[in-house]
């Protein structure tokens, strides 16, 4: 009777050792090789990353006495402000070339949340001239914030362009 458990010969045992070794090799090799280079050598990375709440889309207005009288007592605020925020226009020039222009819409159903921008620019390391322009107010033409600066990036360095709400300035760090 052939019982499904044939006696394994010496070759079979050697084969087992070989196949186990191959499996370990497969795991051992591809769990850390080949080396992955996310950025080519001599490159740096600029990250443009904003999450900023724009200006309201229109002026607050003062309500007259008659207008207030028509409202229920709990809603009689003398000054009414719109909730909707302005989209934010962002531009980036690197070394005099416009590389990015984007209009970020405010988040939230009532469009009253922050507008966000995130973009990566791999770039050759070294000195670069950056111009960042932001308009966070729909009612104004041109730009509300501009920052122009020279930066020197070492290889693999990340430069983050952000907006600091406390000082209302564009930051490079």
């Amino acid at each position: 009777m052939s019982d499904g458990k044939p006696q394994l010969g010496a070759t079979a045992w050697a084969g087992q050792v070989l196949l186990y070794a191959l499996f370990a090799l497969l795991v051992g090799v591809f769990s850390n090789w080949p080396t992955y280079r996310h950025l080519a050598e001599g490159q740096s990375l600029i990250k443009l990353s904003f999450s900023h709440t724009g200006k309201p889309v229109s002026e607050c207005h003062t309500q007259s006495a008659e207008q207030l009288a028509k409202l229920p007592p709990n809603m009689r605020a003398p000054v009414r402000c719109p909730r909707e925020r302005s989209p934010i226009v962002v531009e980036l020039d690197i070394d005099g070339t416009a590389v990015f222009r984007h209009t970020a819409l405010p988040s939230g159903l009532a469009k009253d949340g922050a507008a966000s921008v995130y973009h990566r620019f791999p770039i050759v390391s070294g000195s670069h001239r950056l111009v960042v322009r932001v308009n966070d107010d729909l009612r104004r033409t041109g730009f509300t914030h501009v920052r122009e600066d020279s930066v020197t990036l070492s290889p693999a360095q990340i430069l983050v362009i952000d907006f600091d709400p406390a000082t209302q300035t564009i930051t490079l760090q």
Partner: protein
Amino acid sequence: MAQSDPLATHRHAPGRLRGLALNAWRVLEHRFDAVFGSACNPLRHLGALGFLMFWLLAISGIYLYAAIDTSATGAWHSIDSLSREQWWLGGVLRSLHRYAADAFFIVMLAHLLREWLFGHERGFRRFSWLTGIPLLIFASVSAIGGFWLNWDQLGQFSAVATAEWLDWLPIFGSPFTRNFIRGAAVSDRLFSLFVFVHLGMPLLLVFGLWFHIQRISRAAVFPPRPLALGTLAALLALALARPVMSQAAADLAIVPTALEYDWLLLAVHPLTYAISAGGVWMLLAGTLGLLLALPFLPGKGGTAPVAVVSPADCNGCRRCFDDCPYAAVTMISHPIRRMGRELAQVDPVLCASCGICTGACPSSTPFRSTATLTTGIDMPQAPIDALRGRLRRALAVMKAPQPIVVFGCDHGARVTSLATDDVAAFSLLCIGALPPAFVEYALRDGAAAVMVSGCRAGGCEFRLGQRWTEQRLAGTREPHVRASVPRERLVTVWADRGDEGALHAELDQLRMRVRTSSAPVRHV
């Protein structure tokens, strides 16, 4: 004399491409059989190996969890020093943890591939297939999250890449990536999220695995011991030869360059940067959608009739309940017998139509004198009475002095190819559907010898048919072949589809043995 019921074959006929790939897989599996023995062949135990890796991950993970400082500032140091200062325990466990995760992934994908090649996405297995799919997600997310916990540059790269990928979906009010733009931004709160992901997913995985093997009785949740030991030894050797070490500590001011990269678990990030975040999302959605759709695509192989219980012939012995590979039989109280007696009941949704229950039922004995053989649990497409009738007729018309009867299985080596003047061959739904008393019956009815054939050990299409048959014929499982059956007149051959050559060789040997033995010679 070939005796195969055309109705008996309800196998799913694979497409051309899959057919070719299946043949290639079978060749590989048979090569491995020669090396490991079919019962310990890793390719036949991929699900069980997945479980083994899971246990290993759980044990090594508990140790690592006790050692890690789960804060953004302390994590790197705690793990790095584990590898350096306690290489002989903490370091080894850390390496095992990573390599087991890699191995888990390989065996999981191989398991999926094998099940697909064998057409196991359909029919009664649809449930197993569909419950397997979420496991892919849980395992991947947990594995990727594990890299973040080291908070070395590899973990940093993976976390940022994941955030950039997630941000493609409009789900976060403020981009998730903003958590990683400044050193101070990686708060302990975010780190708690990492821990939550890496520990929460395995909990979902346990739950999902429980579901996955719900409909499988005696699921192989641990591989045969030699295979388990061999696999563990291989991983341990790897952990000692090439311990996993942390890369430099995370630093959000720089892009990690030249990473020693885990392509088995983290391939998704380079892919994201090579195509695009949106592209990878599409690819993922497409793959998952396809996997989910496969069981519902039109294809050959309809639903086969399921086992039917005959209350008058069931004495409630529970053998079918014990032997059913898919937990399709339950025992209820018998409506017509006296109090306390039980009756088998088949859940048609779970039934695989394998007939193993018929092979288990004591009422399936062909020696019963009834004109029509009815048994406790029978297959409408291959009733036991039809098998007895065909066996009788075949032996009655065969002129050979020493005829041989062959019982085989629709999924194993084709026994019908053996049929000649002195051989009557019967192909069953599964060899487990053969009531052992048929062996004795054939011998008493004039056969000089009986050959029983089914798939190789570990290769049964219905998981347990080969094992139960082997045990029943060896007398270690009920119902068994009587001890009075002369062993030289019974041979078992475990041969897969494609092994017909082996079958012929065994048959020739059996013929020779019969001629030179004391087997009776019929004078017809």
